[in-house]
């Protein structure tokens, strides 16, 4: 993949475009994926100017930035303000990963009682500053592109960066994991072994990893563009999953993504643990 910079872009200064990487509530795995581009990292550092990336360098170049990669979800009052500032200094803002794109696993709080969560983990909950919901970046500012995955795929990340540098739309497919299984020649785990799988409703991008490892897809790339979650849920039930299990498989790393949220709520037990009807986003 080539990441050749354009030396001049309309309305912008000469030289390689500047890149900033920001972290909100997250595990660091998506920005680590950038550092995991071992073969491309030094070439990338030539094609863009790494202007703000605290995990990699103490050096800071003042904004505004041509491209901002944003990892993590919004979960604190301080971060509500910080994301506005990030948007202001970013020409193009790309979210990377399930936290930034769908609220991440910490969006499970959206279905529970945060006051109770706090007291489960911390002896002095009054020391904490936290919002009752974990929300994606797009709930607060306009986002130019959302890259899926928990974590993001490194080839897709490079494509997004290349597209940003070349001022074009990224070529990221929005079809299901099933297409990737067919493409790599993996036998369908549901058809052949009766293994429950979220592949039909999950967006491609991982390379259909789980079925290649003889397990069902667990939906870490979030919903594909036309998911029929209800039909998959019926099939999961036929394969022996209880209602509570069906609820939980849709309620993991992309729990607050709309199609998964709706489907999980259809399978809520009447008064199960950690669940509440009006939950959601």
């Amino acid at each position, binding site marked *: 993949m080539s990441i050749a910079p354009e030396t001049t872009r309309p309305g912008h200064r000469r030289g390689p475009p500047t890149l900033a990487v920001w*972290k909100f509530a997250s595990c660091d795995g998506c920005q680590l994926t950038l550092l995991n581009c*071992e073969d491309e990292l030094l070439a990338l550092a030539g094609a863009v100017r790494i202007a703000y990336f605290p995990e990699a360098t103490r050096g800071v170049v003042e904004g505004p930035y041509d491209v901002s990669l944003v990892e993590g979800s919004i*979960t604190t009052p301080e971060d509500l303000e910080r994301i506005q500032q990030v948007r202001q200094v970013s020409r193009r803002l790309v979210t990377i990963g399930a936290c930034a794109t769908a609220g991440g696993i910490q969006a499970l709080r959206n279905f*529970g009682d945060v006051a109770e969560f706090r007291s489960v983990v911390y002896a002095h909950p009054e020391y904490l500053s936290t919002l009752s919901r974990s929300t994606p970046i797009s709930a607060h500012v306009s986002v130019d592109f959302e890259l899926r995955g*928990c974590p993001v795929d490194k080839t897709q990340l490079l494509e997004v960066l290349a597209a940003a540098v070349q001022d074009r739309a990224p070529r990221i497919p929005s079809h299901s994991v099933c297409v990737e299984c067919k493409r790599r020649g993996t036998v369908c785990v549901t058809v052949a072994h009766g293994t429950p799988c979220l592949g039909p409703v999950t967006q491609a991008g991982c390379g259909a990893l789980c079925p290649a490892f003889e397990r069902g897809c667990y939906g870490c790339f979030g919903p594909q563009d036309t998911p029929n979650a209800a039909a998959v849920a019926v099939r999961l039930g036929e394969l022996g999953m209880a209602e509570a299990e069906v609820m939980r498989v849709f309620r*993991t790393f992309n729990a607050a993504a709309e199609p998964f949220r709706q489907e999980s709520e259809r399978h809520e037990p009447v008064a199960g643990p950690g669940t509440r009807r009006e939950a959601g986003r």
Partner: protein
Amino acid sequence: MTDEPTDDRRVLTVGTLARVEGEGGMHVEYRDGRVTDVQLRIYEPPRFFEAFLRGRSYTEPPDVTARICGICPVAYQTSSCWALEDACGVSVPDAVRRARRLLYCGEWIESHSLHIYLLHAPDFLGYDGAIEMAADHRGLVERGLRMKKAGNDLLDVVGGRSVHPVNVRLGGFYRMPLRRELLALRPRLEQGLEDALATVALVAGFDFPELEQPYEYLSLRPETGYPIEDGRVVTSSGTSFDVRDFTRHIEEFHVEHSNALHARLDGSPEPYVVGPLARYSLNADRLSDTARRAAADAGLGAVCRNPFRSIVVRAVEVVEAFHEALRLVDEWQDGHDPSVPVPPRAGEGFGASEAPRGTLFHRYVLDDEGVIQDAQIVPPTSQNQPSVEADLRTLVQAWHGLDHAALTHRCEQAIRNYDPCISCATHFLDLTVENR
């Protein structure tokens, strides 16, 4: 950076501490060379893992807790598997143990190489980061990236991917790697071993500030070999206990300036240390001959108490991890079941493994259907927070004569000595040194 000399109070601030995994803060106040307050501030927004694990199935923590940290997900997966298998009274066979150790070697290689070359070495060589360092030392940075990639390749083959591997399950794995897949990695692992030995020689030549750390060390110690994925708990004062008893010895407490809980050992007010220095000092006799020779050539004794030398110990551990990975690959036999069944039962289970940054404890309570009633996770960075603060106190008192920029940088370095996994703990690291 601001420097405000007033009568008896000077404040020096670095907005964000760089080259740590995540972001957080530090605050030191001192007057006349005496430190009056020191805080490692951890602002990582709380993510409540222990809370939302309640009510979920006992089969889920390997996938769910991996998401606590993108740099050491295998540590979370492994500690959670041990704890849940313990709760269910299941012991996994040798083939599964070997696969866990092999996967874990990949994580040590990836995480330690990242820290040595991309996060820590720039301090010693005088650069803002590895990209800047590559302009003058391209070969060095390429070697670091090559080692890191070998670790990630191992994680890909055994775990499916390097960040949040998909192949780990309770009782073992979904699919065992094949001998031919592992042998295909062998040239990269051999190159890695060679690169790791060169790394030990490189970092041994860095300048290290003198600092002796008097604290207790704690690590696992298995029946044989160097502690990676398993073992009993041992300490430098000679205590030894089973992982099942960790809650009787390790107590967590909540301080106002940190969103990560602190920990103390056996009620002692003194800090204790987990991680490479502790592992090495308690288990140097368990290293392979190759790693032991490298350590000796690097001037390491049987015990290392200078936290600035942690980069050397980390490099020795990378040698050990490559060496161990090669051994496991060479001894690999196909045909073993990838996992054993783990039927649920009511009870409490405990597990621990050596994350790259130190011992990671998990505890779960299950009901008879395997629904999680309680979960407790004690990550290494929480345990090390008090000793990070103690190091900063010692260091600022010893070097308060340095100018603020130099002292601040040394403080940053002292924090990076621990390779703090701030995503296991932190969000925004503001470094403030106040002189009053």
